[in-house]
């Protein structure tokens, strides 16, 4: 039955996912097992994205199906069944910029790939990023920005991190529509990624190097 769900989710067959989840829950199936299948499916979705078979609409739609699925499964989940994460990431769209679609996809892909994501939302001032990094002791800071004004905000955020004495403890990755290696150098970030899967790969690399 697990294969059914994985396949339905990978194929973005919304109705089938709903039916399979419903019947498995009614049959008394382990809700954690269901969520585990969902994670497996999302990994395949991520692979297909990385291979150029799926694009942003598929990621967004898969996220939507997963969200509905989680809502259905949640009442059956035991509070004790907490997920184990492979690492923490503080994420947000930088000050002055309110674009969230790219950031949300990155957050979602990090999440399904086992990261504990602290998403601060959009138009996030440098101070807030620093505070969240301090609070969570996250080794990764992911900054998103779509507009050219984001270049300076990213730079200021990296500087604020340095001012707080955290620069050598935290890896900074940046991404967005007009982000390049040129901008990475300008902002003082460690790496830049061209899409969500690149972000996941960078986060994994940072964690492995720790």
């Amino acid at each position, binding site marked *: 039955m697990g294969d059914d769900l994985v396949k339905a989710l990978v194929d973005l067959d919304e109705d089938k996912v709903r039916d399979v989840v419903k019947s498995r829950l009614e049959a008394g199936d382990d809700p954690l097992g269901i969520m585990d299948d969902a994670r497996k499916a999302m990994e395949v979705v991520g692979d297909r994205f990385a291979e150029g078979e799926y694009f*942003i*609409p598929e990621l*967004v739609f898969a996220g939507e199906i997963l969200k509905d699925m989680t809502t259905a499964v949640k009442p059956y989940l035991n509070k004790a069944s907490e997920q184990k994460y492979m690492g923490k990431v503080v994420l947000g769209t930088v000050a002055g910029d309110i674009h969230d679609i790219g950031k949300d996809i990155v957050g979602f892909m990090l999440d399904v790939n086992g990261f504990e994501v602290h998403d601060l939302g959009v138009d996030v001032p440098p101070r807030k990023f620093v505070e969240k990094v301090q609070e969570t002791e996250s080794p990764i800071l992911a900054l998103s920005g779509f*507009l*050219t*004004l984001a*270049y300076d905000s990213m730079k200021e955020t990296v500087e604020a991190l340095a001012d707080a004495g955290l620069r050598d403890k935290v890896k900074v990755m940046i991404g967005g*529509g*007009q982000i390049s290696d*040129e901008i990475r150098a300008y902002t003082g970030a460690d790496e830049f990624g061209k899409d969500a899967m690149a972000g996941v790969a960078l986060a994994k690399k940072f964690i492995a190097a720790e």
Partner: protein
Amino acid sequence: MEERKWEEMTPEQRREALFEAWLSPQGIEFAGPDAEKAYRERVTRIKDAIELKKPDRVPVFPVIGFFPAFYAGMTAQDVMYDYEKLISAYKKYTLDFEPDAHGGAFNPSPGRIFEILDYQLYIWPGHGVSPNHSYQCLEEEYMRADEYDDLIRDPSNYFMSTYLPRVFKALEPLQKIPPLTGILEMYSAFSAVNFIPFGMPDVQEALQALMEAGNEAVKWIGYVGTHDKEVTAAGFPAFFGGGTKAPFDIIGDTLRGTRGMMMDIFRRPEKILEAVEALTPIAIKMGATAARNNGNPIVFMPLHKGADGFMSDEQFRRLYWPSLKEVMLGLVEQGCVPFLYAEGGYNSRLEVIKEFPAGKVLWGFDQTDMSKVKENLGGVACVGGNMPIDLLSVGKAEQVREYAKKLIETVGGDGGYIMMSGAVIDEAKPENVKAMIEATKEYGVY
């Protein structure tokens, strides 16, 4: 141009007429014979490039957003609220930088209007955005998923009674206005009853707000018109005759929003197809009417949701391209030159978009591989763009010059190329914008 005559003209004749109107602008007294000569040379340069001929040199047109405001030491808020400042900044930009055309003073929209109407769709300088930054769109599902049929049946009525009352809070009472197509004859049910909502206090307040917004718009266009006249008189043509959008983007950008539209791709693709079909003639008319009124054939079409990554090739071919192509062909039929400004990447779309009559359109690219562009669109369409916005923002002038030189070598070779920025320029270094223009004038001579 007289309507009847226009109807009888072939698309080629219409296009020549629009180019001719652009070349000899009405009511302009040039600053002198040099300005007039320079003006005609600039228009001819752009026209030749569009028609895939070899101009005297590569034309250069940086696509400008709020850059002139920042260059003049003003804020974005200044130029959205103070029309004197607006036109002095935009005029200063054109006169100081001497591009081959200017983009008008249209980018900073007049903030007062949107305050009067209480616009919900955007935040703007001093109104949710810092005074120093451009406006930004607040994406929501302003059109709900179950409203496609309403839009398809009667787009104008849907806009008036549903969409506009949602995005302009001051226009909320317009929801009460019945379809105007119900006003048919004197028999009261076919006429008088339709006027009742106009007698309601809240509807009247909304109409009052519209009139106030209208007054502000008239004031604003007076300034913007003066700007255009003055820079034209100095020898610089306006690049844009009008604007319109791809039908898919009309729905995806501001009606359903990016997310909503992406759901629709899977949940109700047949509704998308019906809706883009309903919007196609409207999109054509929007661009063609403006071009004729302004006497300039170039119709700006910023493209968004069809970029690389935003959908698959199959989705692009099925849902995005057919109606866009129809709009482009419809504009060409009306003598216009659609100017497709493909923000983001368009690498995966080149195979599709090259299927188009030669020499009729202008494509501006952002992050698309320009050697592939030349391979696919060479001999088909005039192309431009790809001067990276990140380079203009944080790079050095020398890097910009090198990039411009490389671009000219790669795609400029035998004409049909216009130097443009890949994206709209807000915060860029003035010396870099200057370098882009000067390098084109230096390396772009044929």
